């Protein structure tokens, strides 16, 4: 009888753990979708800034700290706030003039998003 009880308990616990695992997977998926959405918005705004300032100032976010630069306070506030949602983010300027934003996902992989800056 004790064995029966133990087997039933193990099955129950395994089921609960399975549900928790499913919940964790759903959370990770949500997180990934959210991070992609955030990254897309950030890179879109940075690409817009590329029309007014040089790419180096954009990827280093110097455009946000330069008091003599154009008045992009709201854009900069959004970019800096939203980049905090992306763990270990990194902004790179590519040779083609594009911007690449990469960050670390919860499973350890690095995700990246690359936007082509539209020439005038």
């Amino acid at each position: 009888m004790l064995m029966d009880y133990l087997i039933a308990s193990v099955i129950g616990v395994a089921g609960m753990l399975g549900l928790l695992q499913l919940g964790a997977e759903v959370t990770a998926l949500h997180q990934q979708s959210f991070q992609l959405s955030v990254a897309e918005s950030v890179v879109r705004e940075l690409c817009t800034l590329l029309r007014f300032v040089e790419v180096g100032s954009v990827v280093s976010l110097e455009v946000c700290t330069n008091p003599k630069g154009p008045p992009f306070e709201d854009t900069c506030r959004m970019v800096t706030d939203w980049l905090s949602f992306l763990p270990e983010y990194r902004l790179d300027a590519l040779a083609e003039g594009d911007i690449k934003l990469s960050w670390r996902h919860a499973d350890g992989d690095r995700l990246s998003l690359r936007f082509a800056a539209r020439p005038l």
Partner: protein
Amino acid sequence: MDSRPHNRRCAASTRVIRILSCERRLETQHAGSGFSLVDCLISNALALALISLLSSASADIISTIQVAAERGDQSLRLRQVHRFLNITLLTAKMPAPWTAYAVSPNQWQLPSDPCVSPAIGGDRPQWGGVAIIDLSEMPCFPGAVTGYGLYVETVHPCPQGCEKRSGYRVRPAECETEPRREAGTRVQWRAEWQEVLSHPKECPQDTPWGRIERLLLSHRSAADAQGDQPELRVQSSVGGPEFGWTTAETLVAGIEDWQIRQLEIPRAPVSSPIGVDDSPAVQIDKLPRHLLQMVISVAATHPRQRLAPMTSSRLLVPTY
């Protein structure tokens, strides 16, 4: 003497004794099997410990899922607004092949008066455009709308998407002239109401024509909503004999704050930091630009999450 009845009685009594002894054995076994009180207490304690462990883990995961869902919902609503703007602003001008004089790429073209029907507004060299308007100064919008709104006049080339519908048709005022002329002349475009949109019969078959639509984006704050959610709303113009605007409909709910402003960007090249590769592939503006900036703040739907609102800023750059 026949001893068989006696033997039978003996055999029967022996069988009864055997059965009784079996029952006694069974009773003895039953009395010794099952869980004792201590077993039950231990198993209950184990079960409770497991359930509490799983409950705490589940609570953490459920809370994380709720936060992630809330954040996802906020970003989804922001995306809806941006997607709507992308599509709308793309048509906030006449198609480039229609006009010899493109609007300056440094500013948005100004649309026609939102309170005047396009049919009586007169001929114009361009239709379409974007403007910020003070709604308190606009008497033509129904309902108690206050604050600033984003007014967009769009031009859609026909005949794609124009069949069997009414609308304001836009066409060259003088059909015999080529819309795209050499420099020095300006083609005037005329708008007129049609119950069923059709190609202007008096014009050559290859004459470009389209339809005009007008949209207004406005915000209803939580104070004005009177218990409802604050929202971003959209209104469109209604044509026909009596020109007017529809009542505002919800575009995206839960927009806590919305600001729209004009931004002038002076020429301000910033020197790049040492070590950062500057690519010359993208040309930088040399002229001041008049942009629009929209700042949207999306509140959390479920107040118990107590998530901070997500604020998005969007620079609306003319793409003429």
